[in-house]
């Protein structure tokens, strides 16, 4: 490897990466219910859903193991895209490290409303409004909160 010119070696790496990456072309989902950049289509005129402070209704009753799966799944919460968490591979580094979230002493209710819509805390947050924009359902958010609280 050392004897190869660096540029060519670099491309060798990328070719391997490409070969291992069978791009699954899922059918394009319909996101026209959310704002888009079009000047003419209806979604171009849609408003952003406003920040919503959602209270946790009753006891949490979340399943931490399911929450862990959801946090890792790219089509679930994909929390790992931005956060280091317990388990999973290739975590992101932009958000706070959540691998010991359960030791922070935050309540289930507070955690639930943050996952539901972080904009209620910080309008400029990069975190998607998981509840307000229906990315995750109420039971799914409860599972993720349970996983976070169990992360010690």
């Amino acid at each position, binding site marked *: 490897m050392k004897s190869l010119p660096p540029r060519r070696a670099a491309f060798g790496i990328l070719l391997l990466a490409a070969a291992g990456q069978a791009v699954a072309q899922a059918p*394009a989902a319909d996101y026209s219910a959310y704002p888009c*950049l079009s000047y003419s289509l209806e979604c171009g005129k849609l408003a952003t859903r406003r920040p919503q402070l959602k209270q946790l209704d009753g006891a949490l009753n979340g399943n931490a193991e399911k929450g862990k799966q959801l946090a890792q799944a790219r089509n679930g919460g994909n929390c790992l895209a931005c956060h280091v968490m317990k388990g999973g591979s290739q975590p*992101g580094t932009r958000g706070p490290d959540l691998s010991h979230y359960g030791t922070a002493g935050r309540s289930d209710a507070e955690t639930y409303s943050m996952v539901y819509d972080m904009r209620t805390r910080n309008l400029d947050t990069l975190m998607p409004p998981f509840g307000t924009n229906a990315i995750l359902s109420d039971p799914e958010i409860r599972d993720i909160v349970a996983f976070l609280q169990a992360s010690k």
Partner: protein
Amino acid sequence: MRPTTRWLALAALTSISALGLATAAEPYREQYPPARIDPARGVDGDIGFSDTLPFWRTEAELERNAKWVGDPNEQWKLNWKFMDLDRVELHPGHLAVDEGEAMAARLSQRNPAFLLCLADGGSDLNGRAAAYPKYDARLGRIVTVESHIEHCAKTVLSEEIRQGSPANNKLAVYFKSLSAGMPIRVDLGDGKLMESYRRGERLFYAKTGQLNFACASCHVPGSIMGHKLRGETPTTPFADAAHYPTYRTPVGALESLQERFARCHSQMRTLQLKPGDPAYVDLEVFMTVLSNGYPVSVPSAR
């Protein structure tokens, strides 16, 4: 109803309708806090932005920093420029130049006016791509290399070579390869072009889709740029337009800049627009102004 109550009810009704009107005209939309970009600086605007430009600006710098290729923490600073031109081994992006050339020759044989149209009445295409996108007063719209190819094919040959099609991309790669190494020079003195730039700039910061992301959520300082987003590390938008259409190794196909926008939008869970959509044209103008002064870098791979 007592007079005060009636007055309150009336006031409430009026304010609701006023709010309704305001909402109809200007819906509540969020935007990512704008970074300060001076279009006049072109690619130099990256200084004070991602500050990675010194690492990838020249061949010599890329050579010097080649040790970062494959390094998960450092590679993003090279802005993938080690994948441009002949810096990497032969790949389908290189082959597309030859295919595009053969295609252009074939089409020009059918009607020499095709090449004349592509060259805006000139004798060859050399160096012309570096001035795109530009405002075409006769057509009354901003023209990209891809839309220009589509237009010439349609008007001269009555043939559909749609933007975003493999044939259009091959012709565009060939066209742009004839400007390879020449500094991009989008005309900032053109008022129509600057209007487009400003619209594109607004779109860059507009939050859209189910995830409520803007382009800027991943591509300005303080955002995810330079941080890990699972397997990726988002890079600077400066000089990005310079290497399109590019051969995408994960996709196994050529992809134009506007097709890339659409792919990003699908990942952002936002409705994808079609290549040539006026919003994508404005975004391309914005992105290309951020490449002004940087050489056209086609063919390339990503």
